[in-house]
């Protein structure tokens, strides 16, 4: 499974964590390509502290965050880390966004495996049975 993670809000990152977990459970390899707002969501200083919510459902953000805490739903980032432990999940940072935002390797969370350009990601994704853009 290959997912292009474009979004940086928690409501859209949650399915990234859940789908990655599901794919690993079903014995699939996963390639995650974090680009644009997605890349900002895997910065060390944002990855676990992120509470941004999509603008169109902003009014429900606080309630959902509360519910997730109450029901002990793990953070999306911890889901990805856990999936990495159990199976083959590769976390790629988009080099174009990385350069555009003037990032360094130290800015990115340890879950990141490498910084790659779109060509390499497409080449990895071309054989994936499931491809998603989130």
């Amino acid at each position, binding site marked *: 499974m290959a997912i292009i993670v474009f979004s940086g809000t928690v409501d859209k990152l949650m399915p990234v964590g859940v789908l990655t*977990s599901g794919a*690993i*459970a*079903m*014995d699939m390899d996963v390639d995650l390509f974090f680009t644009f707002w997605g890349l900002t969501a895997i910065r060390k200083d944002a990855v676990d502290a992120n509470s941004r919510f999509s603008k169109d459902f902003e009014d429900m953000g606080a309630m959902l965050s509360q519910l997730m805490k109450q029901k002990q739903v*793990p953070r999306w980032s911890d*889901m990805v880390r856990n999936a990495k432990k*159990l199976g083959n999940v590769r976390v790629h940072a988009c080099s174009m966004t990385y350069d555009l935002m003037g990032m360094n390797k130290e800015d990115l969370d340890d879950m990141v495996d490498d910084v790659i350009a779109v060509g390499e990601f497409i080449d990895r994704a071309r054989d994936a049975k499931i491809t998603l853009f989130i």
Partner: protein
Amino acid sequence: MPLMKLVEAMKEVDIGRTVEVWSSDSGSQRDISRWAEKMGHEVVAVNHEQGYDRIKVRRRK
């Protein structure tokens, strides 16, 4: 996620042993049954309790 807990637990137990998942996720029974079938394990029992299900799976390989 109950399925992920099961995937983890299944690696810990010997072949032939069972793991029982207690899940309040209403999708777990179907999810786990499908997973077990795909992975070659066996769902040996499903019990519906008040507010949660108990799903027992035997490791087959």
